[in-house]
C-alpha cells in the first residue's frame, strides 16, 4: 500500500473546494467585468453623440448607434469603414492633427455639413483624442450642432440685415461687436471703439449710473457728421445677462429724416405764427385806418344835424348817420371775428356784477323793444349768485347780439332774457344759463345748421339791418369761454337761443367800483384837444363847444406841453394817440412827470380799440379813453367818470354827484370852471347863454320865456307861502316841484336851487327850516324878476295866456319865413 493513500481523499476534497472557490471568484469577476462592460456599452450606445473607435488611420473599429443613425448606416456595417471618408475629411489633415496630439488632449475639428439619410443637412462638430492605454486607437466624439448652427446662422443673418445698428459692449464700455449697419452709420468717420467715444464722456457717466437697474433702457440722441450733412442717431442700450457675465447691448437708429421733418415743421410753425402776428398788426392798422375817416363822417353828420332845420334834409342826414353807424358796427364785428379766428382774441377776465350788467343791458334793449312796440322782459331770479369772474364786455356782447337780433326780427309780441344758475364741477364754479326767447317768425329747419355761419341771414335779418355776423361772433365768443350755444325754433311761433357758460363765482368784496350812472351832465371848462388830423380836432371841438367848453387845439404832444405851460387852468386834455413828433402816450408820460400837471385828467381819443392798447394808455398815466368814431354821449359819459374820479378820489366818485348841472349847490373844486364866456352868466340868476342854446338859438323865444316867468313867479311865491303856512309837506313839495320844473328848464338856477332846498326840508320833515328856505325862495324870485326886467327892458307885463301864445305864433311865422 502507498503511504500517501490516507491523504488523497483529503487533498482531493481540498482541490475540489479550491476549484469551486476559484470558479466562483472568477465567475464573480467575470460578472463584474461584464456588468461594467454592459454599463459602458449602454453609455456609449445610448449617447446622443456619435461615438466611435477607430484605428490611427481612421478605420472604424466600433461605433455607436447615434453615429450610425447620423450617417444613415447600420452599426455593424460601419465597422471597417473609413471615418475620414464618411465625414468627408482629409485623412492627411487628421494624421497630421493627431500626430502632435498628446494623450488626453482633445483635437477639435471644424464643423462640417453632412446630408443625412433623411435628406436633412446636419452640422457636425467632430473631436478626437486618444488614451494612453490604447495608443493605437482614436476615440471619436461627434456632436450634432445642427440646431445650434441654425440659430447662429439666423442670428447672424438678422444682425447683418437689420436696418438698425447693433452693438455689444462690456461693462467697461469697450465695444465688442457691431453689425455692418453700425459701421455704415460711421462711414465717414472712425467707428467708435468704446461707449465713451460713441456717446461722450458726460453721457457715458450717466449710462454707468443708470444702467445698474436691469430693466432700465438708456436713451439718448447723438449727432454724427456725414460729409456736410448731420446724421441724428437715436441710441438705446441696456444691461444684459448671459450666464455668469453681464454685458451691454444697444441699438442705433438713424432718425435723421424724422429730425429734419421736425425742424421743417417748426420752421413752418414759426412762419405761420409770424403770419398770424402780421395779420393781427394788419388788422390793428386797418382798424385805425377805417375808424379815422368814419370818425369824420359820423362827426360831420352829427354836426350837420344841428344846423339843418329842413325836415327832408334832416332825414337824409339821419340816413347818413345810420349808414355810418352800421359801417362802424360792421367793421367792429369783422375785426372781432378776424381776431377770434386767428386766435388773437383774449378774454379780459375779472370780477364783475352780473346783475348790474343785465340791468344795464336791459335798459338799452328795452328802449329798442319799445320802439317796435314789443314787450321786453328780464327774468333775473333773486337767488342767482351775483358776482362772477369773467369777461363782462364779451358776455354782454354775446347777449346783446342774441337779444338785439331777436328784437330786430320780431314784429309783435315779446323778447325775454331768462337767467338761471346751477352748480358745476370745480371750486366755486357755476353753470350760467342764459335763454333769449322771442315770438318772432322763427327759423326754418333747413336754415338752422347754417345759422351760426358768417353772413348767413334770413331775408328778415338783412332787412332789419343786422351785420350778419352777430350770431357767428356770439358763438365764437361762447366757445372761447368754453361754453355752448344752441337754438330751438318753430316757424310761426318763435325762437329760443340758449347759452351755457361755466364761470367762477366770487365774493362781493372783490368787485371793483361800478360806474357812476351817466345821467350827470358836466360843468363846462377848458380843454385841450390834441390830434394831428384837423378834421378830428374840429369834430371834438364842436361837440365840446356845444356844451359850453372852451377848446385849445394842439396837433401833437409837443404843442400840448407848450399849451399846458402857458395856460394855467386846463380841466382836461383829450389826446389822440398817434401823432407825429410826440405821440399821445409819450405826452401823457411827460405830463405825469411834471409836478404841476400830475393831476390833470387825460382822456385818450383813439382809433386803436384793442385791449392791449387800453393797458398801454392807462399805464402811461391816462385816465380814460374814448374810441373813434366819437359818439357824443359816450364822450361825456367818459368825461363824467374821469373828472369825478380825479377830483374827489375814487371812493367818493361812486357816491357823490358833484357835477350838478345848473344848480349852484355847495361847490367843490371842480365846479370852479374857467369858461370866460360864462363869467357873467355865472353870477346872474339866469344862465342866459344856456337858455338861448336851449331855445335852439332863438333869442326872441328866450326872452318870451323870461317874460312869462316874470308873470308866473309871483303866483308861485304866493302858493309857497300858503303851503308853508299850512305846514303841509305834501303841498310844499308840490309847489316846489312845479317851480323847479319851470326854473330848471329855463336855467334859472338860483330859483331852482332855492325851491329844491325848501322841497328837501319838506321831504325830511324839518319844519323848523321852512321859514329860512321860504325867505331864500322869495329873495331869489325877486332878484330874478329884477334881472329879467333889466335884461329885456320889459314893457307892461304881459300876463295873459293868449298874449303869450300869440307872441309865440308870431314867432313861428318869423322862423318859417327865415
Amino acid at each position, binding site marked *: 500500500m502507498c503511504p500517501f493513500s490516507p491523504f488523497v481523499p483529503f487533498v482531493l476534497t481540498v482541490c475540489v473546494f479550491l476549484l469551486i472557490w476559484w470558479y466562483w471568484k472568477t465567475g464573480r469577476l467575470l460578472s463584474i467585468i461584464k456588468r461594467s462592460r454592459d454599463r459602458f456599452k449602454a453609455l456609449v450606445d445610448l449617447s446622443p453623440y456619435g461615438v466611435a473607435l477607430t484605428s490611427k488611420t481612421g478605420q472604424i473599429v466600433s461605433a455607436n448607434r447615434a453615429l450610425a443613425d447620423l450617417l444613415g448606416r447600420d452599426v455593424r456595417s460601419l465597422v471597417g469603414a473609413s471615418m475620414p471618408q464618411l465625414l468627408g475629411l482629409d485623412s492627411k489633415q487628421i494624421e497630421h492633427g493627431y500626430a502632435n496630439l498628446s494623450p488626453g488632449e482633445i483635437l477639435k475639428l471644424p464643423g462640417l455639413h453632412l446630408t443625412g439619410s433623411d435628406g436633412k443637412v446636419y452640422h457636425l462638430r467632430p473631436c478626437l483624442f486618444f488614451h494612453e492605454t490604447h495608443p493605437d486607437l482614436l476615440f471619436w466624439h461627434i456632436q450634432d450642432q445642427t440646431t445650434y448652427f441654425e440659430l447662429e446662422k439666423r442670428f447672424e443673418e438678422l444682425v447683418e440685415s437689420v436696418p438698425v445698428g447693433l452693438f455689444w459692449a462690456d461693462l467697461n464700455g469697450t465695444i465688442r461687436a457691431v453689425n455692418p449697419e453700425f459701421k455704415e452709420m460711421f462711414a465717414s468717420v472712425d467707428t467708435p471703439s468704446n461707449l465713451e467715444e460713441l456717446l461722450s464722456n458726460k453721457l457715458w457717466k450717466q449710462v454707468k449710473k443708470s444702467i445698474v437697474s436691469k430693466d432700465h433702457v438708456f436713451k439718448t440722441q447723438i449727432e454724427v457728421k456725414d460729409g456736410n450733412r448731420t446724421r441724428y442717431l437715436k441710441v438705446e442700450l441696456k444691461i444684459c445677462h448671459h450666464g455668469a457675465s453681464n454685458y451691454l447691448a444697444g441699438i442705433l437708429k438713424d432718425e435723421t429724416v424724422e429730425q429734419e421733418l421736425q425742424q421743417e415743421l417748426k420752421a413752418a410753425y414759426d412762419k405761420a405764427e409770424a403770419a398770424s402776428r402780421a395779420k393781427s398788426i394788419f388788422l390793428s392798422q386797418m382798424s385805425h385806418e377805417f375808424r379815422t375817416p368814419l370818425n369824420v363822417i359820423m362827426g360831420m353828420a352829427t354836426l350837420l*344835424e*344841428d344846423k339843418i*332845420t329842413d*325836415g327832408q334834409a*334832416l*332825414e337824409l342826414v*339821419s340816413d347818413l348817420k345810420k349808414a355810418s353807424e352800421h359801417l362802424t358796427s360792421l367793421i367792429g364785428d369783422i375785426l372781432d371775428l378776424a381776431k377770434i379766428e386767428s386766435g388773437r382774441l383774449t378774454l379780459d377776465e375779472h370780477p364783475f356784477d352780473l346783475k348790474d350788467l343785465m340791468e344795464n343791458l336791459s335798459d338799452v334793449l*328795452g328802449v329798442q323793444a*319799445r*320802439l317796435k*312796440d314789443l*314787450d321786453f322782459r328780464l327774468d333775473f331770479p333773486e337767488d342767482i349768485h351775483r358776482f362772477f369772474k369773467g369777461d363782462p364786455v364779451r358776455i354782454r356782447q354775446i347777449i346783446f347780439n342774441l337779444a338785439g337780433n331777436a328784437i330786430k326780427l320780431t314784429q309783435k309780441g315779446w323778447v325775454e332774457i331768462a337767467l338761471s344758475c346751477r352748480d358745476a364741477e370745480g371750486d366755486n364754479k357755476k353753470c350760467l344759463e342764459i335763454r333769449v326767447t322771442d315770438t318772432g317768425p322763427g327759423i326754418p329747419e333747413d336754415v338752422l345748421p347754417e345759422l351760426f355761419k358768417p353772413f348767413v341771414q334770413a331775408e328778415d335779418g338783412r332787412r332789419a339791418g343786422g351785420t350778419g355776423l352777430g350770431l357767428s361772433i356770439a358763438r365764437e365768443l361762447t366757445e372761447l369761454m368754453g361754453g355752448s350755444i344752441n337754438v330751438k325754433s318753430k316757424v310761426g311761433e318763435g325762437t329760443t337761443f340758449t347759452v351755457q357758460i361755466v364761470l367762477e363765482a366770487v365774493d362781493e368784496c372783490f368787485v371793483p367800483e361800478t360806474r357812476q350812472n351817466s*345821467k350827470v351832465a358836466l360843468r363846462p371848462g377848458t380843454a385841450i384837444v390834441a390830434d394831428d388830423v384837423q378834421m378830428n380836432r374840429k369834430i371834438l371841438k364842436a361837440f365840446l363847444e356845444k356844451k359850453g367848453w372852451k377848446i385849445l387845439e394842439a396837433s401833437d404832444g409837443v404843442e400840448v406841453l407848450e399849451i399846458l405851460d402857458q395856460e394855467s387852468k386846463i380841466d382836461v386834455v383829450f389826446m389822440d394817440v398817434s401823432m407825429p413828433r410826440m405821440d399821445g402816450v409819450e405826452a401823457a408820460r411827460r405830463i405825469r412827470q411834471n409836478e404841476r400837471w400830475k393831476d390833470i385828467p387825460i382822456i385818450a381819443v383813439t382809433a386803436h380799440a384793442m385791449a392791449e392798447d387800453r393797458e398801454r394808455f392807462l399805464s402811461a398815466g391816462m385816465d380814460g379813453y374814448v374810441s373813434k368814431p366819437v359818439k357824443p354821449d359816450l364822450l361825456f359819459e367818459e368825461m363824467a367818470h374821469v373828472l369825478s374820479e380825479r377830483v374827489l378820489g375814487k371812493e367818493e366818485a361812486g357816491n357823490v354827484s358833484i357835477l350838478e348841472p*345848473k344848480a349852484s349847490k355847495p361847490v367843490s373844486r371842480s365846479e370852479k370852471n374857467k369858461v370866460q364866456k360864462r363869467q357873467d352868466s355865472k353870477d346872474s340868476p339866469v344862465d342866459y347863454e344856456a337858455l338861448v342854446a*336851449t*331855445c*335852439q338859438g*332863438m333869442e326872441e*323865444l328866450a326872452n*318870451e*320865456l323870461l317874460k*312869462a*316867468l316874470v*308873470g*308866473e313867479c309871483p303866483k308861485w311865491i304866493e302858493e309857497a307861502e300858503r303851503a308853508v303856512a299850512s305846514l303841509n309837506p305834501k303841498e310844499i313839495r*308840490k309847489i316846489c*316841484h*312845479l317851480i*323847479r*320844473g*319851470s326854473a*330848471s*328848464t*329855463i336855467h334859472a338856477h338860483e330859483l331852482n336851487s332855492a325851491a329844491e332846498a325848501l322841497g328837501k326840508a319838506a321831504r325830511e320833515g324839518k319844519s323848523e327850516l321852512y321859514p329860512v328856505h321860504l325867505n331864500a325862495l322869495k329873495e331869489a324870485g325877486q332878484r330874478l324878476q329884477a334881472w329879467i326886467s333889466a335884461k329885456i327892458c320889459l314893457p307892461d307885463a304881459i300876463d295873459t*295866456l293868449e298874449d*303869450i*301864445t300869440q307872441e*309865440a*305864433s308870431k*314867432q*313861428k311865422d318869423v*322862423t*318859417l319865413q327865415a
Partner: protein
Amino acid sequence: MKRVLILEDSLIVSKLLANLLRAKGFEVRECTTVSEAQNDLSNVDLAILDYSLPDGTGLEIAEELKRRRPDVPMFLLTARGSSIPRDVARKAGIKEYMEKPVEPEMLLKTVERYCAIDADT
C-alpha cells in the same frame, strides 16, 4: 304836417317845447289840465304828456289816447327822481320816458325819429 299835443302844467315848459316844435314845422296844441286835454283827442299824431297835473296824471290821458288811437306815440315827462315804474308807463302805452328838465334837442330828435319811423311803415 304833424300835430303834437303837449299836456304840461308849467307854462314856461309848455311854451318852450311848443315853440321849438313849431319852429320845426309841427302843429302844436297846448293843454294845462287833464280835462282840457280830454276834450279833443282826435286830431293828434303825437302826444307829450307831463305826469303830474293839477287834476290828475298824464297817464290817464295816455290810456284814453291808447284806446282811441293806438297808433299815436306818447311821451311821458316826469320830474327827476320820480318813482313812476317804467312798466306801468309802458303798459299805459308810453313809448318814451323822459326826465325833466328835458333837453330840448333830445326831445326834438326823439320826436323826429318817431315821425321818421312813421314815414317808413
